[in-house]
């Protein structure tokens, strides 16, 4: 491998077959380049989708009520269903074992909020302390809603990071009062959410406080849960699906809604959705690999071809070498090394350029569904191994043919 003479020979033979060498290298090169870019983008899609899901806990189930569309047990369609604290409590009791976090939500859209001279319209949500985990929010400063806040219906508020920036600029908001529809609330915390700005323009109050202050009574708009996760993803998906179904059936029977009425309750099962999308992503990335590998195979066949031509053209030379004492193994080694060399050079250039292209493209791509397209280290190593293996494969058949050349036949003068 590190034999200088061998390398010299390789360069000499390759330079004798410049055009073929070049064309072959181009095909291997573009194969790898295409593979890298495709993989990069499939990773990008994965990142994008994952970050969409990370806005909230991935094992979240949310339930909201709507309007019936089917006649059932003598009740007319068009009936509005209203969820209440009691519904929430019932589900909590019944499915306690499978539930990790839970919250009932009473929310108001466009809640006018002011602090000093600054003001804005935000979504106001009355929620439970668990909301922090269900929303996948983390605290920037201060704390989230506590059980005491709930028990005493305190007039406190946890604000999103964007709200803090809008109203407080650089000022520390903790302990300050903001007015929501003219009522004072004390800021106890600022949270940030992976969902970004859209999810950070909200204010959380303790649910009882929100219901009292904004005349909600015992009404809630929605409920959200997270399912206890088992280590096995498929099991978790199954549990999540089963729970969602149970919630829906229970509520439907309680409110006398037709079992096939699809709009009276909307139960959103993130885990099930995640599974569907992830399997779609898997399919996409499999297709990408398939296309990329296909182009590499085309390139490898090219390398194999050029090596066959080289062997054929060098039949006489190989005969001479054998007459002078070349072992069959050294001839095989020579051809293999040549093939691996061409494939590797072309392949690595493709890899290199692909990675650079992705690095350049990455910051330019501004889409929710493609984020940070890149090729990770393990994948690069895999591709490198594939390239080397492909080179060896491309060289194998020509090398075998070369090894079988009989010097006496190669040397016969025409």
């Amino acid at each position, binding site marked *: 491998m590190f034999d200088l003479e061998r390398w010299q020979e390789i360069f*000499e033979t390759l330079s004798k077959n410049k055009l073929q060498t070049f064309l072959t290298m181009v095909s291997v090169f573009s194969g790898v380049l295409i593979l890298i870019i495709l993989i990069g983008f499939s990773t990008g899609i994965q990142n994008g989708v994952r970050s969409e899901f990370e806005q909230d806990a991935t094992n979240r189930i949310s339930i909201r009520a709507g309007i019936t569309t089917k006649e059932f047990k003598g009740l007319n369609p068009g009936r509005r269903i209203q969820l209440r604290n009691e519904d929430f409590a019932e589900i909590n009791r019944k499915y306690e074992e499978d539930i990790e976090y839970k919250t009932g939500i009473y929310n108001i859209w466009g809640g006018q909020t002011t602090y000093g001279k600054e003001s804005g319209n935000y979504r106001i949500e009355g929620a439970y302390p668990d909301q922090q985990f269900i929303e996948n929010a983390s605290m920037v400063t201060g704390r989230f809603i506590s059980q005491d806040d709930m028990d005493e219906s305190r007039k406190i508020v946890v604000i999103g990071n964007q709200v803090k920036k809008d109203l407080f600029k650089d000022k520390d908001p903790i302990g300050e009062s903001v007015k929501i529809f003219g009522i004072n609330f004390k800021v106890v915390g600022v949270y940030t959410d992976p969902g970004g700005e859209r999810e950070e323009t909200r204010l959380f109050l303790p649910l009882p406080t929100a219901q009292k202050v904004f005349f909600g009574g015992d009404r809630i708009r929605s409920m959200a849960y997270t399912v206890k996760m088992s280590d096995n993803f498929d099991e978790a998906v199954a549990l999540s699906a089963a729970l969602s179904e149970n919630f829906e059936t229970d509520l439907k029977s309680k409110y006398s809604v037709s079992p096939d009425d699809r709009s009276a309750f909307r139960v959103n099962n993130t885990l099930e959705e995640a599974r569907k999308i992830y399997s779609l992503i898997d399919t996409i990335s499999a297709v990408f690999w398939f296309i990329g590998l296909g182009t590499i195979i085309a390139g490898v066949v090219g390398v194999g071809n050029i090596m066959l031509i080289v062997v054929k053209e060098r039949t006489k030379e190989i005969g001479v070498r054998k007459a002078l004492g*070349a*072992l069959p*193994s050294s001839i095989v080694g020579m051809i293999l090394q040549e093939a691996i060399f061409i494939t590797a050079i072309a392949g690595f250039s493709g890899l290199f350029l692909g990675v650079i292209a992705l690095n350049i493209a990455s910051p330019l791509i501004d889409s929710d569904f493609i984020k940070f397209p890149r090729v990770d280290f393990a994948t690069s190593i895999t591709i490198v191994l594939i390239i080397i293996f492909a080179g060896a494969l491309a060289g194998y058949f020509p090398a075998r043919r070369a090894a079988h050349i*009989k010097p006496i036949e190669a040397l016969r*003068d025409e």
Partner: protein
Amino acid sequence: MIKIEDLHKSYVMGSNSLHVLKGIDFNVKEGELVSIMGSSGSGKSTLLNILGMLDEADEGSYVLDGVPIKNLNEKVAAQYRNKFLGFIFQSFNLINYKNAVDNVAMPLYYQGIKRKERMDKAMHYLEKVGLAQWATHLPSELSGGQKQRVAIARALASDPKVLLADEPTGALDTKTSYEVMELIQGINDEGKTILVVTHEPDIAEMTKRIVNLKDGRIIDDTVVKQVIAKSYV
């Protein structure tokens, strides 16, 4: 040095079989310079190829420098060729993208000799054939006679026991042929055993012994008085 007994060789082509060597008995002592003559198709090259372990006999025995040559696999044959034999071909068979000295160094490469030593040795043999100043020239930049000299230097490089030359002057004009023969005579004078296949009587007369083949048999084997090539040059 070479001992062959009752050597037979047939070429099988489809259902036909061509009996080329029909029982050759033949000995060569160390330091001999032997020419093998005979009309075209008489089996000269076939015999030389068997002696060169490039081909195998069907029957008979072959002993080279005390080593029986029989049922060799390709690897051992390659090693023996490298160690025992030097080849000179009618069409030179130099590697066209390697310069003169690299061509000469080839057999040494396959002996696993280090590059520096290889180059020293190759230069030494190139000097011996009078082409030191052509060391870095490619074969395409050399005349026929020069190419054959490079080939002779290459055959000598591994210091083999026997040199086998199949029509070494076949592609050269008379004057150049004599120059090459002069070189071969010189090498023989230093003690090397050499076999030369030729169909040119004047070339044969420059060896010390002429073996005549006809239809796969030796019909004549005489020691002759060597004509010194130098006197013609």
